[in-house]
């Protein structure tokens, strides 16, 4: 792993979250309090937005949490971009044909947002650190920004569902039992993954039970298979129909070469690559990706490990024109290197790629800084001080 060392002089501020809009070929980066958009076709910067000024004036709380956009969500038609920042402000932009953004609304939500996704209908679904999941739409933004107090009262948010725990992620997908219906999968700090119907989320279809520590990331491998990872040693593959565990993969030993002796591990990104029958995992503070192969019987086996220049903050899959992974690195320890592209060879192995466009973005587009604005690793703070599980001998998990 790269030793922490800060280079004298300004370096590129790392991007704590990245997202890609395939139709518009737009890479959206959350870089501290900046939201940046780059064309992946040319490397040109299409927009830059910063909320720092607001922050100094009116929000003391945000200063304590650091100044950062935590996450962005993109609507299916790529016309809307939502971003949430550490000061609990939810912003909605319109993305135009030229991949530029226009701020439509901004609104503070009551609790800190944990995860958000756009539903195909254009509604925005978000879960907060209080465990509740809400659904809002543009009408809500509109009326909340109006001065009419009466109207605001009518639109008091009612949760569509909730956990009594910190919510960590949510996924929306088709119901594996019936294709014209949908489900919402939510995970929390208390080791639970819940499958509920959507929009009637008061009907719970099941729980995926097996994690021994918080679940930080869930992701869909295909329409009936879920992958989950968190603060424990295994990542799990679940059958969404039966909520049964298909396989558990000891990702800690796969990461063993990268982790210092007893450092606890936290899965920070899960990247399913179904076309290659692979799943990539990133772990908080670790300079590399682990790849696991998925067999046709939905078993996970170790595929390969790919060292990268610095700790991976976030990694996403870009599918067109061919599959590749863009990993965002902690540039405070990589002498300014922010992105690394990973591709797949015909023989089925993974390799680092050179991409002049990403180089251009790094050289010209990113924010130059001397200090990192925001805490980059925070998932591990969810860990509990104890973990005791009652086990009966007959039902030990078999993981090999």
């Amino acid at each position, binding site marked *: 792993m790269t030793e922490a060392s800060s280079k004298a002089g300004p370096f590129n501020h790392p991007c704590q979250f990245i997202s890609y809009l395939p139709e518009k070929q737009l890479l959206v980066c959350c870089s501290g309090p900046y939201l940046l958009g780059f064309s992946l076709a040319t490397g040109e910067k299409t927009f830059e937005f910063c909320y720092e000024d607001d922050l100094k004036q009116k929000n003391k709380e945000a200063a304590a949490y650091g100044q950062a956009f935590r996450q962005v969500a993109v609507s299916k038609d790529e016309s809307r971009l939502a971003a949430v920042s550490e000061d609990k402000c939810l912003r909605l932009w319109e993305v135009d044909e030229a991949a530029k953004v226009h701020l439509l609304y901004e609104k503070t939500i009551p609790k800190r947002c944990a995860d958000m996704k756009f539903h195909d209908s254009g509604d925005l679904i978000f879960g907060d650190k209080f465990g509740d999941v809400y659904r809002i739409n543009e009408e809500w933004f509109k009326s909340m920004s109006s001065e009419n107090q009466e109207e605001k009262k009518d639109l008091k948010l009612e949760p569509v569902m909730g956990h009594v725990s910190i919510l960590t992620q949510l996924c929306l997908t088709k119901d594996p*039992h019936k294709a014209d219906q949908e489900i919402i999968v939510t995970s929390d700090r*208390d080791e639970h993954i819940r499958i509920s119907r959507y929009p009637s989320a008061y009907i*719970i279809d099941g729980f995926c*039970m*097996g994690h021994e520590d918080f679940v930080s990331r869930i992701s869909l491998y295909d329409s009936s298979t879920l992958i989950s990872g968190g603060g424990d040693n295994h990542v799990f593959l679940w059958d969404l129909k039966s909520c049964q565990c298909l396989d558990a993969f000891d990702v800690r030993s796969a990461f063993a070469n990268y982790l210092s002796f007893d450092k606890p591990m936290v899965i920070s990104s899960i990247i399913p690559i179904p076309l290659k029958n692979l799943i990539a995992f990133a772990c908080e503070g670790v300079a590399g990706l682990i790849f696991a192969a998925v067999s046709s019987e939905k078993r996970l086996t170790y595929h390969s490990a790919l060292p990268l220049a610095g700790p991976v903050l976030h990694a996403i899959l870009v599918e067109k024109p061919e599959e590749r992974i863009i990993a965002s690195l902690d540039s405070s320890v990589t002498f300014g290197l922010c992105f690394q592209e990973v591709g797949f060879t015909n023989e089925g192995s993974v390799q680092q790629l050179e991409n002049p466009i990403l180089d251009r973005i790094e050289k010209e587009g990113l924010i130059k800084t001397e200090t990192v604005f925001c805490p980059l690793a925070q998932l591990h703070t969810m860990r509990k*001080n104890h973990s*005791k599980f*009652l*086990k009966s001998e007959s039902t030990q998990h078999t993981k090999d």
Partner: protein
Amino acid sequence: MSLEQKTPGQIQREEEENRKKMKRLAKGGGVEGRLPMKRLFRQRAHANVLSDHELEYPRSPAEMDWTPFYPDFSENSGKKVEIVDIGCGYGGLTVALGPHFPDSLVLGMEIRMQVTDYLKEKIQAIRYRAEHEEPVTGGYKNISVLRMNCQKFLPNFFEKGQLTKMFFCFPDPHFKARKHKNRIVTGTLASEYAYFIQPHGRLYTITDVEELHLWMAETLDKHPLFRRLSRDEEAKDICVALMTNETEEGKKVARNGGKKFTACYERLPDPAK
């Protein structure tokens, strides 16, 4: 780790705990039918449900071994817990339910450790008495108590549709509006309860706080998976009488001449997909 260092307050509490424990041992609660003394198990009435108590729970219901809880129901009988008393406190209702439903396993659940210990010893004692002194239907073999946080860990213990009855007796009222999320019956938790209760199973609430009663009733009334029982139906249900008269809290309210409010519900089947 700095977290393991104890504050003076913690040390003091622990010492107090140990002292009580020694006293309890000297009295021999639970042994040979001697009932534990409640005053040795007092604990403040509230517990923060959102904090991490040092709870033990299985990773999934399949991994739960119930034999220590119901030693006389062998594993092969295939019996599962069917009736749960959430926040059972000193266990008045749990104990009363035992002889009324001798064929069902009844479980009291409570988050406060001392209170759970009290009920454990009490169950030991009454089981012994039922065996050696005056027989009771079922001999209290079908009741037990578990320390746990029901707002968080029900999915670790129970499967879908496993329960026939769920009781919420005299829960913490959490008066402040910002604490309403901590209440035991909320719209979002009701969905979870509905998952565990089988269709046509029942959910019972009782409280002496009218404000809480109205809030719980409003929440459950608008939940699509529950149907409120009419007063007539309530009157016919023996459980309503039991929870009104047999809970420790219910007796206290009656002694002080307080009012009790009940709201009971039937779990409706899931609408078809």
